[in-house]
């Protein structure tokens, strides 16, 4: 597909523009309690290791992190449950299926997610071999794995590889995430590092931090859940 691209002209304009150096890099222009500069102009800017000291507090132990995650999830109106075993997770899921009258569910090949989905005994769509969008759209719930849970924000990190593609975790109205305790990360930086170790340089084409069920405030700034994505998000932490 040949179509003229202005790459060379734009890059030439950028280089020309940058010949004059910018005067300073200080964020607080008039504030006397200004923060100190973290780096000189020719040094690299502050990295992720330093962010932790400024962002909201996260406790160092796993128990503290699970407690913080639970607190954040509650605020986000996500349904978080720490369960002792896969059997207990199966029981919780069976209750959800009954209470919400699920008729059909979707999942993907994943040691925890597919094991739990199959226990329910409902018609189950697997996305792995490919699927028809309409077929997935008609499912009542999706059960997926994830890459990490983030204590600081109550988020779940999923990717096209860890959660059965791009659409499985967003199209059905109820998303159930299954995670293990070892997947708890204190903050976003740690979760991104975890993903880097797992994937780089062969990254999945899609990653997403999911923070609570889909929401909108576009009408009079009033919170409504389930705008376009799932109305309900359940997170099962196994172990």
């Amino acid at each position, binding site marked *: 597909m040949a*179509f003229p691209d*202005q790459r060379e002209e*734009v*890059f030439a*304009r*950028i*280089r*020309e523009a*940058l010949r004059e150096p*910018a005067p300073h*890099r200080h*964020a607080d222009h008039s*504030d006397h309690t200004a*923060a100190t*500069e*973290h780096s000189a*102009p020719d040094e*690299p800017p*502050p*990295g*992720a290791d330093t*962010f932790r*000291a*400024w*962002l*909201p*507090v996260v406790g160092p132990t796993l128990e503290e992190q699970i407690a913080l995650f639970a607190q954040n999830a509650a605020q986000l109106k996500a349904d978080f449950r720490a369960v002792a075993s896969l059997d207990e997770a199966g029981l919780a899921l069976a209750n959800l299926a009954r209470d919400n009258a699920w008729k059909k569910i979707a999942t993907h090949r994943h040691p925890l997610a597919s094991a739990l989905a199959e226990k329910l005994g409902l018609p189950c769509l697997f996305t792995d071999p*490919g699927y028809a*969008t309409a077929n997935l759209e008609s499912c009542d719930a999706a059960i997926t794995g994830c890459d990490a849970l983030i204590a600081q*924000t109550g988020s779940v990190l999923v990717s*096209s*590889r860890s959660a*059965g593609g791009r*659409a499985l975790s*967003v*199209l059905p109205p109820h998303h159930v995430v299954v995670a293990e305790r070892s997947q708890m990360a204190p903050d*976003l*930086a740690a979760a*991104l*590092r975890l993903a880097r170790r797992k994937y*780089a340089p062969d*990254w999945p*084409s*899609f990653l*997403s*931090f*999911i*923070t609570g069920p*889909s*929401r*909108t*405030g*576009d*009408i*009079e*700034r*009033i919170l409504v859940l389930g*705008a376009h*994505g*799932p109305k309900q998000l359940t997170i099962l932490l196994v172990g």
Partner: protein
Amino acid sequence: MMTFAQDFKRAAARVTADLRHRGLIQRALKSYEVKRDEFKGRYQNWSEARQAASEIKWDAINHLDRYLAEFIAKLEARGTRVHVAGTGEQARDYIVMVAAENKVRTIIKSKSMTAEEIDLNEALEHAGCTVFESDLGEYIVQLRHEKPYHLVFPAMHLTRDEISDLFHRELGSEPTNSPEELTMIARRVMRQNYCRADMGISGANFAVAETGMISITENEGNARLTTSLPKIHVAILGIEKIVPQLEDLALFLPMLATAGAGQPLTCYNSLIGGPRQPGEVDGPEQFHVVLLDNRRTELLADAEQRDALHCIRCGACLNVCPIFKNVGGHSYGTTYQGPIGSVITPHLRGLQNWKHLSSASSLCGACTEACPVGIDLHHHLLQNRRNATKAVPLWWEKVAYGGFAFLMRRPFLYRLSGKLGSIFFPLHKLVNRGPLDPLRSWTGTREFPAPARESFQDYWKKKQKEERHGVS
């Protein structure tokens, strides 16, 4: 034809007089402020975080050529088609061409201010495509054939009743005053559109140079569906969206959410690094990234105001601006409203036509204080005023300031003019607010302060005389 400045003044005067409208906006922003402060309070040190964010963006913008080249190379290595567009027209032509080559009829779109900037929808509709905005607020303003009111909250100027009437009229839905039911109406309509759209168009909030990924921030899930289901995904973004490292997002994503929407983190923060890769089960077959200059390089060339390109479009400066709260988003007549819009629009669309926005400011500095990446917004407004006057001086300003300087250098004339002022001022009552009032642009909305009967100099002389008498 009216000038942009006249349009702005007329619209601003109309909206400012509409107390219902102002009440609606100020109520909405009050609830934002409460939430923003709650979550900002959880940061151990917001001001240090802000300084770091500013330094990271400084690094990105001041080495833009290097980072942009890295971003493009990484994307292309994984099968993304990158198009660098010098102007809005070139970006539109490219996207229309992609749509035509793939026989695209229906397009689903998630929120993008960059697409608004280049009037992309109009170009695609002109080429015969149907475009659906999927973000709820954007969908509402699209149905009303309106521009977004606010760069983050596009429909914040409408009440639920107005939206219910709109849906009833355009979609045939039953009237309701429940925001939840209204949201569900839009959800049902949009579900069908995601599944049948041939192309999805999105913007991007960040462009990660090191890994070649775009990052999209949203709450509704519409951007995820837009970028997952259709066979083609086109993302359009300004060249300034660059951040160097993937981990930089660990700072920018929470700060964007807190400053912009009063949330700890928005619901979905998605990274997209290519079309569907081998072994993946879904995702678009084609992924196009359109990088837009559209005079951003002119702003880049202005070293003094280069930091305006640090902007992450969170809208925090709009939310705290006393001008925005009173004149509203539509009065600006720009894609980007509020303080940041007043700073960058003169660069993007021409200084002389848009210099009036630099005066639509109380210079209170609330915008600069609210900015999570520390852009010196209110000083940039002053610099735009200076640059505009330097380029095209106004004759009456020259006369007025010349006369003022003449007077100030001659103490006798200065004192005389003060005296004459206090003698003749009572006569002003005769013309006050009338067509002959020389001070009408001031007295139209407020009282003009009467000159003191006695000048400070006279008072001081008298007082000293009295004291001397008292001592002796």
